[in-house]
C-alpha cells in the first residue's frame, strides 16, 4: 500500500496505536491515556447529513447515472445517524464500483451454462446476467421508469417508498426481476459496509467500530475465558502492518 493512501485513510495513526501495544490483544491490560484518546478520536463519526469530508470517488465502472442511483440508494439502506456514519461515510459506492468492475462483476465463480429457466424460490439465482450485467440492465430500466424525477433527486421518503417497491413487488427491470435486483443491491451494501477496508468500503473500519468487531486479530486465547469483558481497542484491518501481533506462534518454522 502506498504512503499516500495510508495517510488519506488515516492508517498511519492506527499503525502508531498498534505499534504502541505489544503482544496479543489483551483487553484486560489497562489502556494508556494516549491510546484511549486515540480510540475515542477514531470512534468519532460524521454527523448525520454532514458531508463525507473526502474527495469525490473516481469510478471505474459506474457511469454518472448509475453512480447517482447507487450513492442515493445505499444512503437509504444504511443511513448516517447522530452517532455513526452510514454507507456513504463508509465508502460503500466505491466498493460497488470496484466489485462490479472487477472479476466479481464479470461472474467469478458463477456457473453460467444454460438453458436458463426461472426456478422455484428454493433454487436460487437462475438469470444469465453477470453481476455487472444485472446492475447495468436494472439501473437503466430504473432510470427509464423514473424519467421525471431521478431517484437521487427524490425526497428521502419517496426514495424509501421506491426501494420498498423494488423489494416487495414484481417489477420487470429490463428482464431483471426487481426482487433479484434489490436483494443483490442489499447484499452488496452489507458487504461494502462490513467487509475489510481493503475492498474499498468500510472506510476507517466505521462499521467495525460501530458494532465492536475487532477485525483481523489472530488470537483471543488469553481472553476468551474472561467472560463479558469489553474490547475497546481499535480494530485491525488485514491491510495494516500488524507488527507481528496477530501471530500466536512466532516459533513455528516456515515449513513443517
Amino acid at each position, binding site marked *: 500500500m502506498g504512503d499516500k493512501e495510508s495517510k488519506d485513510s488515516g492508517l498511519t495513526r492506527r499503525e502508531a496505536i498498534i505499534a504502541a501495544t505489544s503482544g496479543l490483544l489483551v483487553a484486560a491490560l489497562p489502556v494508556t491515556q494516549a491510546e484511549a484518546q486515540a480510540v475515542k478520536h477514531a470512534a468519532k463519526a460524521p454527523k448525520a447529513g454532514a458531508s463525507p469530508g473526502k474527495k469525490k470517488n473516481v469510478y471505474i465502472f459506474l457511469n454518472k447515472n448509475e453512480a447517482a442511483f447507487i450513492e442515493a440508494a445505499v444512503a437509504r*439502506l444504511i443511513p448516517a*445517524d447522530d452517532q455513526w456514519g452510514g454507507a456513504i461515510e463508509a465508502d460503500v459506492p466505491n466498493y460497488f464500483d470496484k466489485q462490479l468492475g472487477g472479476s466479481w462483476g464479470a461472474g467469478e*465463480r458463477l*456457473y453460467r451454462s444454460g438453458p436458463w429457466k426461472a426456478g422455484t424460490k428454493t433454487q436460487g439465482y437462475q438469470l444469465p446476467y453477470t453481476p455487472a450485467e444485472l446492475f447495468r440492465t436494472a439501473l437503466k430500466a430504473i432510470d427509464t421508469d423514473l424519467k421525471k424525477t431521478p431517484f437521487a433527486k427524490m425526497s428521502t421518503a419517496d426514495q424509501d417508498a421506491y426501494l420498498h417497491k423494488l423489494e416487495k413487488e414484481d417489477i420487470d427491470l429490463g428482464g431483471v426481476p426487481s426482487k433479484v435486483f434489490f436483494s443483490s443491491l442489499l447484499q452488496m*451494501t452489507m458487504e461494502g459496509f462490513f467487509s475489510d477496508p481493503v475492498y474499498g468500503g468500510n472506510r476507517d473500519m466505521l462499521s467495525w467500530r460501530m458494532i465492536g468487531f475487532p477485525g483481523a486479530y489472530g488470537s483471543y486465547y488469553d481472553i*476468551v475465558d474472561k467472560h463479558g469483558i469489553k474490547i475497546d481497542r481499535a480494530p485491525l484491518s488485514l491491510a495494516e502492518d500488524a507488527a507481528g501481533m496477530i501471530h500466536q506462534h512466532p516459533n513455528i518454522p516456515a515449513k513443517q
Partner: protein
Amino acid sequence: MATKLKPVDVVTIGIGMTGSILARELVKKGLKVVGLERGRYVDTVPDFQSPNMHDELRYAVRKGMMQDNTKETVTARNNLDETALPIRRWDSFLPGTGLGGAMNHWNGQTFRFQVADFIYKTHIEKRYGKNFLDPDLQIQDWGVTYDELEPHFDRFEYLCGTSGTAGNIKGKKQAGGNPFEAWRSRGYPTPAMKEPYFAALFRKAANELGYSPYPQPSSNLSQNYTNPEGMKLFTCSFCGFCERFGCEHFAKSSPQTIIYPVLASHSNYEPRFGCQVLKINLDSDKKKAVSVSYVDSAGREFEQPADLILLTAFSINNVRMMLLSRIGTPYDPKTGEGVVGRNYAYQTMSSAQVFYDENTNINPFMASGANGTMIDDFGGDNFDHGKHKFIGGSYIGAIMTNGRPIEFHPTPPGTPAWGLEWKKAVARHYNHTVALNVHGSSTASRGNYLDLDPTYKDAWGLPLLRITFDFPDNDIRMANFVTEKAKGIAQQMKGKTFVATPRAKSWTTTVYQTTHNTGGAVMGSDPKTSVVNRYLQSWDVPNLFVVGASAFPQNSCYNPTGTVGALTYWAADAIVNKYLKNPGKLVT
C-alpha cells in the same frame, strides 16, 4: 487421444481426509500409490497465513476455498415433479477442493455416532414396533456395529488430537462428559477447549433445567499435541476464522496438519494435482476396474491403470463418479429398484437466539470452529419417541463459531431488513446476542436421491449430479419438537428477548445449512439396498472401495466427520489385512 500411463498398485480419486489416510496405510505396505486431486496443492504455509486468511468476504462470502462453480456444480430440486436447476453459487452446502478437501474448511466438530445409529432399523423396530415409521422412510442398518468401529473412532481421534471430556469410558459414566455417549476405550487425547461466554451462559441454563451439558468435542486443539504419525499440532487461538477458512495456526486437524506430510515423504507415493477424473474404466465383463481416466490442468488426457481404485472424493462426488462410470444400478425412486444414489440424506437444522442487555458482552468473535457447550438429551434415540410419532433427534448447543459481521449481525424479530432502525438494532445487538444450534438427524426417504442431470454439464462435457431432496415430514416433526426444547433453554438463559426458528419445508439451496451431505453409495449387508458392503467395497467391482459419508445409510444428528474417519480406518484395516492377502469379494 489419452496417454496410457504405467500401471500402479493403487489410485485414490481425491486427496482429502479419506484419500490421505488410506494412501498412508497402503504406502506403509510398500504399494505404489498415486493420488489424483482436481484442486491445487495448498498448505498452511504459505496458503493459510495471516493477514490474508482473515478475509470474510473472500473466504466466507465468496467461498474462496470451495469447488469452482464455473467448472462444476450440481443441480437441485425438491421433488420429482420439478425441473432441477444448477446451484450457480454455493450456499446450502460447500464442497471443498484442493489438497485436504472439505477437511480444510471444516469446523473441527468431531462426534461419534451412537450405538443405535449403526443398527438403526433393527433398533427402531425393536423399540417401537414395525409400524412406527412413516411409510416413505427407508432406514437401514449399516452392516457394521459401533463395537466394531470403536477402535477406529479411537484411532481417528488420536490422529486429530481431538479435545473433549469423555462421558463414558468402557461403560463407566464420567463426570462432565456426555452421559448419552457410546462407550469409548479411553478419554480424548486432549482436554476440552476453554469455554467461551456464550457457552457458559448455555451451560448454566441447561443445568437449571436438569439437562446434561458437556463441551463439544473439537479437533481445533485445546493444547499442543503430537499425534501418532509424529505430526505436531498447536493450541487453537480462538481467532474466529475457522469454518470456510484454512487454519493459519496449525491448530485445526486437516490432512496437511495430521497426516499428509508423512504420506508425501514416502517415495512410493505420488500426488498429482489439477487432475480431474472423468471415469473409472472397467474390464469387458464389468467385474473389475482397470484404470482411471483423467484430464490434467493443461487439458491433456491420461489413463492410469491400477490394481486397486479408491474413490475418496467428497460424498456426493463419490456418487457422481459411480454413476458416470456406470458401476452399479442407478436408484429409481418410482420403482424403488437400484441402489446408486439411494438414501441421500442431509441435516435438519433449526436455531434460536437470545438477545441480552447492552452490558452483557458476548464477544462472538472470540471463537473457534468447535468451542460450544451442548446437550444430547434430545439427540438420536436418547429419549422415548413412543408418543411423539417421529424418529431421530437433535443436539442443542451454544456453538458460535465466529462474529464475522457480513454474515453475522443479528437483530431481534420485527426489525426491518435495512434503514435507520435496522442499523441501530445491529449496533445495539451485535455483541449482545447468543445463537443456539439445533442440529438434527436426516432420515432416508424414498423420494430423496441422487442421479445424473439430463440437461446440465460440467466443463468437461459430463452430466452434473442432480440432487432431489426435501425434508421428510418425520424430520419436520422432529425439528419442531426439539426446537421447542431449545426455546425453553433460550428462555432460561434470561436475556431481554429470545426467538426460536423451527425448520419448515422446503429445503432451499440459498441458505447455508451444513456440508453434511450423506448417502448415495450406502453400505449394508444386502446388495439390493446398498452399493458397498460392510467394508465399503463395491458389490459389483471388488477392486473398488468407495469411502466417505456417501456410505451412511441415513444421517444421524451429529456432525459426520468423526464417523467418516472411523469408517476410513475400518476400510483401511479390511484392505490391508483382508483384501491385499486375497484380492476379491470380502463379503459374498
